[in-house]
């Protein structure tokens, strides 16, 4: 079969793709030289601060900022929401100020005169009986005949309650911007901590009535996003306005408490689940009553039942409307919740069937659809790496002592098709190569993947490629969300580079006495295929361009399929639970993950390792704890909004599924999938250890002890 010209090289022809290659911006980050938005210092810089609502639901009765304006060091004051406005969550923006120092700005905001009329609010979500008419019916879906299926004889039926709370993104670099206008006030440079470099100018321009063409957005480095940094946000808009009014650059990055309180909440999800299987373990029916809290918009139903397309099912969902601040996409939106609600329920069913969960999930792999074989392979691989056959036991560690060990497994899925991406590729007569595109590197390795793709195509080294991203001046590339970046940027880069190489080969072919199609770029040379004696170094070849650089554009989507969509993935947790203290300790976690053709194995493995750690964190520690008395978040700081530390993670094992059967699918994104399973896997491991289910995440010592007591095990 004739290959399409842009196709990825065959396995035997790849020199860089699929290797473990160090990230190219590693030295800049490790040495502290990488400049994030938070690090931008400009001459004459002013500092922005925001006065925020102390109430979860209130009407602003009166607002007087005259003393704020006259406070020392204040250069501009902007009312964001004026008297008469109804505030819907604590921490919502009301007044912004720009001053000569952060302290002066804080001093000024203390002089605000504001009166509120407090209104009723709801911030708790784990008890539907509190919700009244704030629990809005949000759909019933039915397929097959669940009533009939549940009434069949000889079924094993398991019923349970499962849930996971609202958590936040807790980006280490908080949200925010630095804005600076040109002296004529027409052009804005905005350093934005964003996952969406190319998309921000239009959004910001509309808000501040400035043509997008007059706005440059810069984000060389970003200190975490995880789905919370797609929009410019109200603070980004007001920052640009403060900068315009003062004629000075203004920096406004959220304080930590507001990063946690208003800059992103992952919706909760809770469900009562009933699930049935035949005695041989075949899953036949599902019924669930779920609810989710996503703030004012309520929370959507996670995709349940998850991964397994159970033939007879009915789902009923309620969206709970609360005053907790806005929900934002959180790495694999909806999926970690769906895994907890589904895979924990299925694990309880397997326990009731007295089946080994690996066997149970493998037996039902047919319900996963086209990736059934992949799941089977991943279940087997993960079980092997976790020493499942040696360490797993039926539910409840019966050995004496108060430390109980258990294993649990979960499965996940995600799309991850490459997004729209454009790039410019330049090959200069001096041999230098540049790839420029309006993308961003969230720490996933985007720069490195672009460099590897270009270097592989040109037969060069990774360090020979200059990668320019992080500015909206470069050709538009999609936002980095939903694991779409690697597929998008690698494909656009590949197409642009193949076209550039074609031009170079056409230029040098006469001097090698060959046709362009008989030449190849390999090992830093342009040579006649298979004959290195007829060759030019890359530099010699580029000199033949004279004074004219090659410039091409690459696009995705485009000709030849370089990627696809849809992955599986299996994770196994191995925990020890202290039944006296309730503390869960991670012994080991294993991840078997497919993502098609891997460009950089090193950063791919890092995505899985990081996702497992993030998963351990939300499984054991994280919760946005709301107080129904005050309407405020009780833990908007990093002492009490807990992240796992380096001593909390145990041993981590990653196995990337690669090679024949995987590589042919082309490039598929990886950021989301491995973060999905940890909640269910860890919850299942705890249940396997102590013999009872801890129904909701995070699995805190208090909840472990409560579950033991309820189960009569304490």
């Amino acid at each position, binding site marked *: 079969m004739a290959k399409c010209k842009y196709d990825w090289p065959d396995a035997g022809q790849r020199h860089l793709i699929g290797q473990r290659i160090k990230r190219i911006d590693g030295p800049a980050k490790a040495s502290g030289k990488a400049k994030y938005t938070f690090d931008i210092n400009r001459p004459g810089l002013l500092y922005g601060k925001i006065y925020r609502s102390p109430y979860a639901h209130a009407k602003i009765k009166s607002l007087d900022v005259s003393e704020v304006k006259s406070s020392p060091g204040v250069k501009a004051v902007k009312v964001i929401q004026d008297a008469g406005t109804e505030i819907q969550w604590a921490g919502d923006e009301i007044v912004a100020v720009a001053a000569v120092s952060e302290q002066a700005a804080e001093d000024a905001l203390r002089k605000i005169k504001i009166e509120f009329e407090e209104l009723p609010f709801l911030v708790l979500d784990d008890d539907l009986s509190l919700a009244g008419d704030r629990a809005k019916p949000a759909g019933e879906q039915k397929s097959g005949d669940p009533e009939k299926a549940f009434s069949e004889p000889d079924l094993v039926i398991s019923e349970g309650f499962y849930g996971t709370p609202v958590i936040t993104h807790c980006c280490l*670099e908080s949200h925010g911007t630095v804005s600076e206008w040109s002296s004529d006030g027409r052009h804005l440079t905005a350093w934005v901590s964003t996952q969406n470099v190319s998309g921000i100018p239009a959004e910001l321009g509309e808000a501040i009535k400035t043509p997008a063409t007059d706005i440059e957005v810069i984000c060389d480095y970003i200190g975490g996003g995880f789905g919370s940094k797609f929009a410019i946000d109200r603070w980004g808009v007001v920052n640009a306005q403060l900068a315009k009014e003062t004629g000075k650059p203004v920096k406004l990055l959220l304080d930590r408490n507001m990063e946690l309180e208003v800059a992103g909440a992952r919706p909760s999800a809770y469900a009562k689940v009933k699930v049935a299987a035949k005695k041989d373990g075949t899953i036949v029916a599902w019924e669930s009553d779920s609810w989710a809290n996503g703030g004012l918009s309520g929370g959507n139903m996670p995709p349940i039942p998850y991964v397994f397309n159970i033939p007879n099912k009915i789902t009923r969902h309620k969206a709970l409307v609360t005053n907790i601040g806005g929900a934002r996409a959180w790495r694999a939106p909806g999926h970690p919740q769906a895994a907890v609600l589904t895979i924990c329920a299925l694990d309880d069913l397997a326990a009731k069937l007295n089946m080994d969960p690996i066997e149970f999930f493998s037996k039902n792999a047919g319900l996963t659809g086209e990736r059934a074989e992949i799941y089977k392979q991943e279940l087997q691989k993960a079980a092997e790496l976790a020493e499942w056959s040696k360490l797993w036991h039926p539910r409840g560690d019966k050995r004496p002592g108060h430390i109980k060990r258990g294993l649990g497994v979960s499965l996940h899925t995600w799309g991850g098709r490459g997004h729209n991406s454009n790039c410019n590729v330049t090959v200069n007569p001096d041999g230098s190569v540049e790839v420029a595109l309006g993308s961003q590197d969230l720490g996933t390795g985007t720069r490195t993947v672009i460099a590897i793709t270009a270097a592989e195509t040109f037969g060069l080294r990774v360090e020979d490629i200059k990668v320019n991203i992080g500015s909206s001046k470069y050709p538009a590339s999609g936002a980095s969300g939903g694991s779409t970046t690697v597929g998008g940027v690698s494909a656009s880069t590949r197409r642009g580079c193949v076209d550039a190489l074609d031009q170079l080969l056409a230029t040098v072919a006469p001097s090698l006495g060959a046709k362009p199609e008989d030449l190849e770029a390999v090992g830093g040379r342009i040579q006649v295929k298979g004959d290195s004696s007829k060759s030019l170094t890359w530099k010699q070849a580029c000199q033949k361009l004279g004074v004219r650089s090659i410039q091409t554009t690459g696009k995705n989507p485009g000709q030849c399929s370089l990627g696809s969509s849809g992955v599986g993935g299996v994770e196994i947790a191995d925990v020890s639970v202290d039944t006296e203290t309730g503390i869960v300790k991670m012994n080991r976690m294993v991840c078997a993950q497919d993502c098609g053709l891997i460009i950089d194995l090193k950063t791919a493995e890092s995505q899985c390792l*990081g996702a*497992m750690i*993030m998963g351990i964190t939300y499984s054991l520690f994280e919760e946005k704890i709301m107080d129904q008395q005050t309407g405020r978040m009780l833990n908007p700081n990093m002492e009490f909004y807990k992240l796992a*530390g380096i*001593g909390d993670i145990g041993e981590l094992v990653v196995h990337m599924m690669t090679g024949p059967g995987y590589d042919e699918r082309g490039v598929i994104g990886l950021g989301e999938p491995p973060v999905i399973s940890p909640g269910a896997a860890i919850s299942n491991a705890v249940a396997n250890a102590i013999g009872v289910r801890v129904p909701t995440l995070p699995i805190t010592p208090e909840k472990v002890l409560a579950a033991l007591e309820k189960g009569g095990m304490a």
Partner: protein
Amino acid sequence: MNRRKEREPRRDEGLSRRDFLRGASVAVSGGLLVTEPVSAKAAPPPEVLGPGEVPISLRVNGKVRKLNLEPRVTLLDALRDKLDLTGAKRVCDRGTCGACTVIMDGKPVYACNILAIEAEGREIVTIEGLSKGDALHPVMTAFVDNDAQQCGFCTPGFVVAAKAYLDKHPNPTLEEIETGLGGNLCRCGTYAGVRQAVLEAAKSLKGGRG
């Protein structure tokens, strides 16, 4: 003159929690017991600094830097905003996450929990002081080699903490590293790489010392 000795917590009404914590940390490092009653009548009148800007000098990465700043400015903000040494990051801003770690008189400290005026007369080393031009410190090299970073925002704090830790503990075990670096937090989840990087850096530092 050591201003730290004379400093006491501010006693204006309307102390924020943050101001209070900072005031308290001054008192502790100045040798006062926090339990000691702060009585205006009994104590000799303290030297009052501020609230306006005061001149101070900081010794950072071997250079003396003269600054004017309000006494309430933290060492972290002074480094970042006044000296453009932005490697130390502001994340939790209250001594929890370690992203602002710098070395003061040989010890790793949270720069967000120290006032700039407290740091006068101390020897401060930031991440910028650990590399020479493009030449990375061995700890940095180990972080790059082991991909002990993703977004990279916590990384400088980890590198400085690891360097300071290895100075005192040149042969750490994995468990010791987990304790020694327990004061730094990462959100992307780079701990697996960090553990390997610190083990590897320990080896290369010993090799370097011959």
